[in-house]
């Protein structure tokens, strides 16, 4: 009995010690959020995103026939943004790129989103050139919302659950669904929205449907450790929903290490992280034609 109490007390002190040491002003991890999230629930965040969507509508972008989409994730911007600027420069310079996507964890924890946004404002000499591509679509990751950061994220990026359509010169249309999974769940309301959006998509004759989000479905390779993902119930619900409605690809981040899983006709891709401290940073360059090709581009 005495030994049991000692073990219990020891474990309790270990947990409490971890929480208190992680609560300083420079702490990177929101240990309070581990038990009681400091940003709104997914259902509330979805409603906020939908309110913006209803006001502004959904974007339709024009593109050449075989166009490029630049995809990055997990930039974890803190005091530097070197690779973020490199990525922005890369997609803006590409004549074939109508849109770039950031899959979340834009900042690391408490970085001011203004610092992220500054890099998106073109420099004065660049403005004189025709802007070839200047549309960045983003979704929040967990690092963007804990420490009560959701309000700042939404102030900068306006919405985190939406879709956009890219229409090519020859008339093909591709649907990109961006959904919020920043705390490991899509919630009940967003799940219903995903169902309705995909049912609607069935009637529209889209060439490709792509889902973009932060949290990954699967983790098969354990060599880099595991990161948290969806509950099993939600994994299966999303997997069934997406495969049934012909989603071709799911792009996600969160895990930092690349992994590609083929499930029936759907390809789930975890894109490498692109934070400044990462030793092997990549972004993904996707060529959207009748066939979808993708490559991973090393970032210096």
């Amino acid at each position, binding site marked *: *009995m005495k*030994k*049991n109490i000692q*073990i*219990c007390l020891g474990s309790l002190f270990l947990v409490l010690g971890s929480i208190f040491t992680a609560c300083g002003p420079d702490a990177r*991890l*929101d*240990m309070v*959020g*581990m*038990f*009681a*999230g*400091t*940003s709104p*629930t*997914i*259902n509330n965040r979805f409603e906020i995103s939908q309110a913006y969507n209803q006001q502004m509508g959904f974007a339709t972008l024009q593109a050449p026939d075989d166009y490029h989409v630049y995809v990055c994730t997990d930039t974890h911007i803190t005091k530097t943004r070197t690779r973020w600027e490199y990525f922005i420069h890369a997609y803006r310079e590409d004549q074939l790129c109508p849109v770039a996507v950031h899959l979340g964890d834009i900042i690391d924890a408490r970085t001011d989103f203004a610092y992220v946004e500054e890099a998106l404002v073109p420099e004065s000499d660049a403005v004189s050139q025709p802007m070839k591509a200047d549309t960045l679509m983003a979704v929040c990751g*967990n690092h963007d*919302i*804990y420490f009560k950061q959701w309000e700042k994220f939404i102030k900068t990026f306006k919405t985190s659950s939406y879709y956009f359509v890219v229409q090519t010169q020859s008339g093909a249309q591709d649907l990109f669904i961006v959904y919020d999974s*920043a*705390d*490991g*769940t899509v*919630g*009940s309301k967003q*799940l219903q929205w995903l169902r309705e959006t995909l049912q609607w998509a069935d009637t529209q004759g889209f060439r490709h449907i792509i889902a973009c989000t932060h*949290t990954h479905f*699967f*983790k*098969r390779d*354990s060599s880099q450790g*595991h*990161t*948290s*993902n*969806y*509950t*099993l*119930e*939600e994994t*299966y*619900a999303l*997997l*069934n929903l997406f*495969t049934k409605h012909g989603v071709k690809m799911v792009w996600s981040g969160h895990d930092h290490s690349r992994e590609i*899983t*083929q*499930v*029936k006709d759907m390809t789930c891709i975890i894109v490498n992280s692109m934070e400044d401290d990462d030793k092997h940073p990549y972004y993904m360059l996707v060529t959207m034609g009748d066939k979808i090709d993708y490559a991973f581009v090393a970032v210096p």
Partner: protein
Amino acid sequence: MFVFCGMLLAPVAMAQVQPGSAQYSVSLHVGYAHNLTYGSYANFDLDAYMPINKHFDMQANLRTSTADFYTLGVQLRPKFALPVGELYLEDRVMARWVARDEINDFVHALSIGYMMQYVNAQVGMSTRIIIPQPYSFKDADAMVLEPFNIIYRVEAFVRPKMSPWNISLCVANVDNYQVERVWQPMFYLGGWYDIDDHWRVRLSGKMKLAGMFHLNAHYYGAELRAGAEYRF
């Protein structure tokens, strides 16, 4: 491998096992559950506990649910009594038919546990195969293998384990009907009361948060479960 080791070690521990610690039993539970994906639903669980001898026991668990998923699990446990507490190994096989999502999954888990009067701790690993339906043997991409997952269970009792009534608090990513991923703990609060030598009633609650290790945790699901166990 754990089972094999258990068979080798069992004779060593034979003399130390407390007699009368296990009886054949059958239990039936009904649960009301809710989560963000399924909404509200009910579970019906039938469990059988079978002590084969002093050093091995088996357990079989069956769950049917109004949410249209079904689970069948079998556990084999070699046990070794120690001067303090009992060491056990557990070999668990579980099949789930998630008919609502047209997906089957199969899990094999091996773990080692240590049971004391007030605390039960268990840690191990599991492998999962996820098979969307309809399955085709010709299709190489028809299934997803998650080869390695850590499982754990830490349970504390307010009274000695064999007491006629007890209350327990538990954190685990595994129970008799589900093996979750490592970063998806579930929290349990439960208790039992022995009406007589044969009948025991149980009441328990389970809470599942989403996003604990995304550091923005919120409610995902809960279950309230009640039932009775008959010990032969």
